């Protein structure tokens, strides 16, 4: 009987601090699985979702992963949001040779044989956004504001290196970190205002995470900093976050993503309709990580069909090169480094909490696991097809670290 | 000039004693074992003790009486280190400055106390209460690793009988009645075998018979120990008193034998009534 279904693990926090973001992804997965089952399932079998709650607790993520892989024997896991949850899960997935599809933009610097990164790497979000600010808005002074953890730290490090390589002086970059859930932004916003009043065009690149955003934007609005004076480009603020904010004071601020709900394509409209129907609430929105799961899930389905089995090794071999349409009109492809190709869009926040696309890359950008702007990683390369290695040093021509075994 | 003021022999220097229990033998060569000199204590401006002078001789039994609020309990607080005085000096023997010591050091040094409101360890049994009070090394590592000696156990049994709680030895102290707690606390004091006993209202809540027994006990202790008793029960005081000190408004109002004190008009006015 067990053989009748293919189990899919859904590993997203449904309680605790991350529930706010991750619950939607759980629903997305359930919707995608239901849809696939309507289409006749996979390999003639029905898909069976196994939902667990790792409760925003990182060690619990590892425990639940082991439970999913060893007890429930799921064939793939879709899950995680924060990098630390991924880091916690990673050793387990590798040990038990499972598959993890990770749908959130992240700091890069990682490539695992068992993980597929369907969110953006820094070169698919941060760098193009900065390019836009620099070239189109002629921004000369930069505030890099972030929550104090690895993703913002790394992203800002990459950005600072990148900006300096473009001739931005050190005193024209202001870096600021705040704790998780920071809610009192008065003096930081006032500092930004002061920093931005030197006469040079200034922009804020925000890697501020989660709940800290609402008080941040409120303070910006109240202190009279408008998007025309000092635009804020955020990497973690999407439609879902905006739906919890009174968006009026935010109008004109920007976000860089690989997907916006407002993108007018047939695939997207169909997806939105499906979502609204599934969730039964006209006011719900779609967002970038949802699209990432959509892409990841379809890639997995395609790879399983191609391999004719759900066996991990076979799927890992089959999935590289698989192409599926994304929701913004292009076709995303799984790359040998287990990242995918994605378009990069820049949007301005509108009053209704949606984004108006003001700029996008010409084609799709290939995700880069190892940043070209960091000293330690610029020589590294990931290729699970030819090199069978996640961190190959192109200088020494050796696969570094444990994966070499 | 305060007529009750003696002087400690200031020629002997104070010893820098950290733990008098293991330091030098107590120097009482000049008579008094306890010197309370010019001590003042105030709470939010209210003077509870006002230039108090008091000298207790070795082996003496001293009764202290005085109106409610005269500062008797506060005086005990000051001697045992619970309250730090604003001014004045308190010496134990010639050399040990009690003001520099903390509560446990004073207790180890040989000053034991029974509180006005009986305080025992409610969660422990009667036996364990006495066990804890037993004299000896009270450092953590010692109590952690050593059991009581047989001698100490015998002593506890003895005291249990003295205080009439032999039957209740395994009862938890919290369940004793008020009077029983009084007795237990006296028992704990006995276990500590201190040089000086401060006893605050020992017979409160006791029947006449029990009061008599307490009187006997305290008198028998005098001589070996110095005993300071605070009590309002005049019959009781009369039955044990040798020298009586009357406190009033934080200082000594009168001092002398029971008869002297009783006939002192000031004492009659503020304390005894006509």
């Amino acid at each position: 009987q067990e053989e009748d279904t293919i189990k899919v693990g859904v590993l997203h926090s449904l309680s605790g601090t991350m529930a706010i973001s991750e619950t939607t992804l759980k629903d997305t997965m359930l919707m995608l699985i239901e849809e696939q089952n309507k289409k006749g399932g996979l390999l003639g079998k029905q898909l069976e979702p196994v939902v667990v709650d790792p409760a925003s607790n990182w060690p619990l993520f590892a425990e639940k992963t082991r439970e999913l892989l060893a007890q429930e024997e799921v064939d793939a896991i879709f899950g995680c949001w924060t990098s630390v949850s991924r880091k916690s899960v990673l050793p387990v997935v590798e040990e038990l040779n499972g598959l993890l599809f990770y749908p959130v933009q992240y700091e890069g610097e990682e490539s695992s044989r068992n993980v597929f990164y369907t969110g953006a790497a820094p070169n698919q979000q941060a760098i193009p956004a900065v390019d836009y600010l620099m070239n189109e808005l002629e921004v000369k002074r930069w505030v890099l504001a972030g929550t104090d953890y690895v993703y913002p730290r790394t992203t800002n490090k990459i950005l600072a290196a990148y900006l300096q390589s473009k001739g931005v002086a050190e005193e024209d970059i202001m870096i600021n970190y705040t704790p998780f859930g920071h809610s009192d932004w008065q003096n930081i916003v006032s500092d930004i205002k002061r920093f931005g009043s030197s006469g040079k065009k200034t922009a804020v690149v925000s890697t501020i995470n989660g709940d800290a955003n609402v008080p941040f934007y409120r303070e910006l609005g109240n202190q009279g900093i408008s998007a025309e004076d000092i635009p804020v480009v955020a990497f973690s603020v999407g439609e879902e976050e905006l739906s919890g904010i009174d968006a009026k004071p935010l109008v004109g601020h920007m976000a860089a993503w690989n997907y916006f709900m407002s993108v007018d394509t047939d695939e997207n409209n169909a997806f939105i309709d499906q979502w609204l129907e599934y969730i039964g609430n006209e006011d719900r929105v779609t967002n970038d990580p949802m699209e990432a799961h959509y892409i990841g899930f379809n890639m997995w389905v395609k790879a399983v069909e191609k391999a004719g089995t759900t066996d991990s090794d076979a799927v890992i071999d089959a999935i590289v090169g698989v192409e599926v349409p994304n929701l913004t009109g292009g076709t995303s492809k799984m790359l040998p480094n287990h990242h995918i190709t994605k378009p990069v869009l820049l949007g301005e926040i509108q009053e209704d909490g949606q984004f108006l696309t003001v700029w996008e890359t010409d084609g799709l950008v290939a995700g880069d696991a190892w940043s070209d702007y960091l000293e330690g990683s610029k020589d590294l390369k990931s290729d699970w097809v030819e090199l069978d290695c996640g961190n190959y040093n192109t200088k020494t021509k050796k696969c570094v670290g444990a994966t070499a075994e | 000039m305060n007529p009750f003021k003696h002087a400690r022999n200031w020629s002997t220097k104070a010893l820098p004693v950290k733990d008098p229990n293991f330091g030098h033998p107590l120097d009482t060569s000049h008579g008094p074992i306890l010197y309370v000199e010019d001590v003042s204590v105030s709470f939010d401006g209210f003077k509870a003790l006002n230039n108090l002078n008091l000298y207790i001789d070795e082996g003496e039994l001293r009764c202290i009486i005085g109106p409610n609020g005269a500062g008797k309990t506060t005086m005990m607080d000051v001697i045992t280190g619970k309250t730090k005085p604003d001014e004045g000096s308190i010496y134990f023997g010639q050399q040990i400055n009690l003001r520099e010591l903390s509560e446990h050091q004073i207790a180890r040094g040989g000053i034991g106390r029974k509180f006005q409101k009986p305080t025992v360890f409610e969660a422990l049994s009667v036996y364990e209460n006495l066990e804890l009070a037993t004299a000896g090394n009270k450092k953590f590592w010692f109590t952690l690793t050593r059991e009581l000696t047989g001698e100490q156990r015998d002593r506890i049994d003895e005291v249990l009988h003295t205080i009439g709680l032999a039957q209740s030895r395994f009862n938890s102290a919290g369940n004793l009645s008020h009077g029983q707690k009084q007795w237990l606390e006296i028992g704990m004091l006995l276990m500590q075998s201190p040089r000086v006993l401060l006893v605050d209202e020992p017979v409160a809540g006791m029947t006449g018979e029990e009061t008599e027994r307490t009187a006997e006990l305290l008198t028998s202790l005098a001589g070996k120990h110095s005993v300071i008793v605070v009590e309002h029960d005049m019959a009781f005081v009369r039955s044990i008193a040798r020298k009586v000190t009357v406190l009033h408004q934080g200082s000594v109002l009168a001092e002398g034998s029971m008869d002297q004190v009783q006939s002192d008009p000031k004492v009659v006015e503020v304390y005894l009534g006509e």
Partner: protein
Amino acid sequence: MALLKKSVCLWIALGAFLLTLPSAYAQSPAEPDFPTLVDELASGSLSKRGKTVEAIAATNHERAQTVLKALLEGSLESTRSDPRQVLIETGTDTYVLAANGEAVNADNLGRTKRIPIHNKLRSQIKTLLAQMNLSAADADVRLRAVEQMISDGVDGDSIALLQQLKADESSSDVQDAMDDAVALAQLESSDNETRLNAAKQLRGSLYPEVRGALQIVADNDSESSIRAEAQRSLDSIDSKLKMFRLGENIFFGLSLGSVLLLSAIGLAITFGVMGVINMAHGELMMIGAYTTWVIQQAFPNQIEYSLFMAIPAAFVVSGLVGIAIERGVIQFLYGRPLETLLATFGISLILQQAARSIFSPLNRAVSLPEWMSGSLQINPAFSITFNRLYILLFGLMVFFALLAVLKKTSLGLKVRAVSQNRPMARAVGVRASWVDAMTFGLGSGVAGIAGVALSQLTNVGPNLGQAYIIDSFMVVVFGGVGNLWGTLVSAMSLGVINKFMEPFAGAVLAKVLILVLLILFIQKKPKGLFPQKGRAAAD
């Protein structure tokens, strides 16, 4: 680009200026007419829309300002019909034609679409509007127009215009601003004398652009006397700025303190007075915040007043929940304070999950009423945001109200008696269980009120309570348990210390330092800032 913008500005400004002259000169016949331009707004790319906007401004049509404002505010919409009609939404489902202001019947319009603009366009429109506003009737509007000019940059050509306008200007504030604007432009003059005078004029001017421009002069000017003059002006600006920054910092600190106060004050009752270690305190605030949201949903057209409804509503809702908690659980736990920690922790989990189940895990958008938005601009370098100001005042009000309840009413006396000796209080006739329920309800209700205030600052979601619970306990304990004044002083001082530390330590380290200071402080005062005194407290 910047140059283009400037010259357009000037052009429009002149136009606007001329408007005040006899209207014969006003119309420029060669341009396409106004209605055509307005309809053009509906189509084409964003950059084309930019050009159209310029052209509209240049027509100086009487409705140009209205149309541009509508475009800026997002109320300019177009129909999907062909040809597209451009409309201004004037209220829910009521529209007027943009070009002439005629009302249209909303029923047969079909679906309308907002005409989108982006930042570039937005700032362009703002600049254009500012120029038109230079001669507005309202002095405030004129002042803002001049300020907009200052921030856009004043060039040589604007000087004449400003000087001319100044002659007729009635408001001295606007005149001063105009002087500054002129002087700012003159700093780039080639004439030494002009530059010197300009540098002198700008002494003490607080516009950030002024400081930047003076700095350049002070560093680079060829004349040493001018450099020195600029430096003197700079110094005077800097010393003023320093003062204002100090003021600003104190305000920031007090405002942070007021948030701490609000979040701690309910706890000061349930924990401080009653001794219940109430881990569900945060969730009671959360309930208050959700109540605010529900009220706003129920009365979508009353956003301006919704807070006034939300405050009593939140007090009642949270208070009732508090009473339910007290009657259902806590009343069985008096005399076992630590057990209340366990039970209320359980309750807090249940309430959080309940919020998730009822309102979804997503945050809810609570709007800021107009009067809570923006800031009180004292000068270009110092402003006080309204929401913070009101919350500060509100926090103090709640504090004093509560103080009065506890100190002046018999409830307050009974509460304290019950918490100090429950059996004895009953023996003198105090209905202890009633007092408990009321007190817990009061503390909970106040937590609910705090939730209303928080909804104006931060997220309204299931995690709201968690974010504040630790800070609340710290404030109460730091102030001294059982002392309401202690809570006030502790909240305010923690706020101010934090804000003075943040600039050089950073937000994260500042918080760490505050915690370390707190730990060390408790060594000095083991019972908080204002300890309970006396014999009873000592044992």
